[in-house]
């Protein structure tokens, strides 16, 4: 057994605990140390995962699987966590005394996600999911004196607990029908056995439970309030990483555990995806708060990504993985600038962005480019991602879905450009350039470079995704 392959999860969890301890022991609660320690630790773990990318192993009779697919998502989560920690270097001052614990919870959430994507059975998925979700309950309410943040935390707790219950109930029904919780064994058991309504109910409930995590319509209701209320870096992490983890699990379960014959879930998901794209984009059109607008936009993005699972062919799955990765760069870039404005102006209303093009040319350019990437305008990364996703969809015969998706993504340009308009022709009350701390500047440059590079030259990442999805080629 190559137990060192479990190192990343262990390291991240230990790092979280270490920072928690440091915040108790060091003077002024180790505020300055915690950030550096988290950054350095995450970089080290990320390097280790990249070096061991192609090493695969199955642990504990299929319960835990380290494969390229899991490694791909581990890279994604670690990159996202790093970017978020960098971008929030100024924002964390709002947390006051509780700053260093914030890093701990970020790391626990990351560990939870890493467990989710490597899980080979339902119980492990659930454990990882809860580790992630409970960390997020705390993180969403981290601005204690802001009633919106407190409200977000409470809402997330109630609705999140409810959705976890639904998911768990679905899992138990699947267990009842198959007699096992390990994916590969579920597959074998169900292929042999007869069709059962209970299994169908279990699958539907699992779609609902995971649909909550990826905020697909109609399980999206919590998203706008919580995205708007939670501290901006948390919202960013919630939108890129928690969503990606949800997708990773959804794909693994639905392609590996449920044989295609048991229920044709493709069409049901296709309808959900279409609704998600339409409702997310149309509601985003009328938002005046940028954070809330990005929340609706993230619902719409979930719709696009879901198309990859529905297509369930090589292009579609590669598109799903590709899109999840570029979404990290583009969305974190967008939220990083939003966080900057929030700290500077105390608001995330669109008026707060007025004149940003003059006061902070570089962040304004990053926000514009990242949002255009989300809208799928070439040469930004979003276009390449959508090209894969919708090529997959058309190949699988879902022409109508591609139609809706592409039309909606063009409509989305309207609300993204409205922000660009405020930045470039709006006039600001305040004058003078906004100074950027070094970590924030670094994060912005990484997001910008990632967004443009993946769009202009998608080749390398596309080959990485190809390796990651080989797992499903047998299905």
């Amino acid at each position, binding site marked *: 057994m190559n137990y060192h392959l479990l190192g990343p999860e262990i390291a991240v969890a230990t790092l979280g605990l270490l920072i928690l301890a440091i915040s108790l022991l060091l003077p002024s609660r180790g505020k300055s140390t915690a950030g550096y320690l988290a950054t350095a630790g995450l970089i080290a773990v990320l390097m280790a995962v990249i070096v061991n990318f192609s090493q695969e192993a199955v642990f504990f009779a299929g319960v835990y699987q380290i494969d390229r697919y899991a490694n791909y998502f581990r890279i994604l989560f670690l990159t996202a966590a790093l970017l978020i920690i960098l971008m929030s270097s100024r924002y964390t001052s709002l947390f006051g005394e509780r700053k260093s614990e914030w890093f701990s919870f970020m790391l626990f959430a990351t560990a939870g996600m890493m467990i989710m994507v490597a899980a080979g059975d339902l119980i492990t998925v659930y454990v990882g999911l809860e580790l992630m979700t409970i960390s997020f309950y705390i993180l969403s309410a981290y601005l204690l004196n802001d009633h919106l943040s407190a409200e977000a935390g409470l809402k997330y707790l109630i609705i999140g607990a409810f959705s976890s219950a639904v998911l768990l109930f679905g899992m138990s029904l699947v267990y009842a029908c198959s007699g096992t919780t390990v994916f590969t064994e579920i597959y074998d058991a169900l292929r042999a056995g007869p069709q059962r309504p209970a299994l169908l109910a279990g699958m539907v409930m699992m779609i609902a439970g995971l649909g909550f995590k990826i905020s697909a319509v109609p399980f999206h209701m919590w998203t706008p309030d919580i995205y708007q209320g939670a501290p901006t870096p948390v919202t960013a992490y919630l939108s890129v990483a928690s969503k990606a983890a949800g997708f990773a699990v959804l794909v693994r379960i639905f392609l590996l555990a449920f044989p295609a014959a048991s229920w044709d879930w493709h069409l049901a998901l296709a309808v959900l995806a279409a609704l998600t794209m339409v409702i997310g984009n149309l509601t985003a059109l009328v938002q005046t708060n940028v954070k809330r607008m990005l929340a609706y936009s993230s619902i719409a993005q979930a719709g696009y990504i879901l198309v990859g699972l529905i297509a369930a062919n090589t292009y579609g799955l590669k598109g799903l993985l590709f899109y999840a990765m570029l979404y990290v760069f583009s969305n974190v870039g967008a939220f990083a600038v939003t966080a900057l404005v929030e700290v500077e102006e105390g608001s995330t209303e669109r008026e707060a962005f007025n004149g940003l093009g003059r006061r902070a040319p570089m962040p304004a350019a990053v926000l514009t480019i990242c949002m255009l990437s989300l809208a799928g305008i*070439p040469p930004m990364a979003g276009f390449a991602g959508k090209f894969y996703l919708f090529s997959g969809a*058309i190949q699988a015969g879902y022409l109508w879905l591609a139609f809706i998706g592409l039309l909606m993504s*063009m409509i989305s340009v*309207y609300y993204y450009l409205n922000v660009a308009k405020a930045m470039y022709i709006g006039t600001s009350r305040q004058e003078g350039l906004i100074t950027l701390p070094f970590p924030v500047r670094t994060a912005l440059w990484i997001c910008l470079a990632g967004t443009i590079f993946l769009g202009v030259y998608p080749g390398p990442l596309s080959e990485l995704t190809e390796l990651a999805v080989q797992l499903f080629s047998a299905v």
Partner: protein
Amino acid sequence: MYDFPILSITWLLPIAGALLITMLPRTQEGMIRAVAAACTLGSLVLSLMVCFGYDPETGGMQMTESIPWIRDLGVNYALGVDGISIPLLLLTNLIGFSAVYASWHTEERVKEFFVLLLLLISGVMGTFIATDLFIFFLFYEVVVIPIYLLVIMFGSSKRVTKEYAGMKLTIYLLIGSAFLLVGLIALFVKGQALLGFPTMDIGTLAGADFPVAFQVFVYCLIAFGFGTLLSMFPFHAWSPDGYAGAPTAVSMIHAGVLKKIGGYGLIRIGLLLLPAGARYIAPLIAILALGNVVYAGIICLAQKDLKYIVGYSSVSHMGYVLLGIASVNLISLNGAVMMMFAHGVMAALFFAMIGNLYHQSHTRNVSDFGGLAHQMPRLAVGFMLAGLASLGLPGTVNFIGEFTIFVGAFGIYNVLTILAISGIVITAVYILRTLGGVLFGPRRSEWDHLQDLHGVDLVPLLVLGAAILIGGILPFTLMDIIQSGVGQLLGQIGPGQIGGIF
């Protein structure tokens, strides 16, 4: 033939210029303008070298470059030019170069202006030289966003606000491109199924034998996409408002070359890849073309704002191009390509002159002017040259284009062609009336303070005016190149029957 990647350098020069300008300090405005001028001049010279280095005898794609780009999608970074793309590449650079000079007097946010302008020029150029669908689309949409930002930052609000104009233009073009993209992805997926390997190369895809029903369906999609860009009736409403709101340089590039991407796409992708679909839909396109020529022409008669007149007139003239494309024969297609070139230089010259006048007088109403030829004789020359080219006077390059289209189209659609020729009369009415009202008549003293064209202002007039006249008197060089491209394309798609939709 050249032994260096001439096409890559041509489109990368403006990008390099834009990067250089972002590094210059904001206050160095003279330097910023100089960099922009130098880069566009370099591209112009290179595209002239392409034009004269091209061998029409051999024909086909020349000066090709190809680098594998995305393996699993079969995408190559592939460039090349043939007889259809060369005139348009040349046109882009003529106008791009002139546009830099036409906006020499931009005073606010000079840095942003020239960065965006150079990106725009570069993107337009790329669409004409890409021979790979993916790369083509990459360039195609790159242009949309700089245009939006240029319009809202530097445009002017008269009848409609610049924010409205910019957003209308952007959304129209993007919705069109959504349909186009569905069509292109469908082509790619079907091509992969038929050929057995993924490819985005236009030449290779042309070898796939797409079923007729599929061709018709996809041609409808891309005709909608490219048609919107070409301001095909009834999807033209963005064009006059967009031009009116846009700053001079954007109007020049948009009316001059960007629209032509629509026509180019219909020929290069529509006709070459989907010949059966194109021929099936052709009569419908011809009827819509008549809508452009007559309907937009009549609207033009009622316009009072100079930019709206040129805006609607450009919609009207695109009808000729569409008619040429819909006739699918050697003569009509030669005419269509020639007309795209001719209309481009003419419209750009018109907008440059209007921009200069507006910059000084802050009005564009025809009725506010009169007798300007007294104060501004050189500007008057520019206006007259553009106006007479617009109504297709022999001796200008527009005559060559229009005449060729009508000759080619008459054999296919007799009635429609005769009706379309009436467009010339309509054009003559509004153009001559406008020019008479603005330039001639008694001297009006309120305009005595206006300065005639001088110094750098003369560059657009000289460059574009020369193109109009040289193209009109000596059309052979360009026509030979166009003919070699169109002839080869028609040879590839083979003969076929036009019609079927009605």
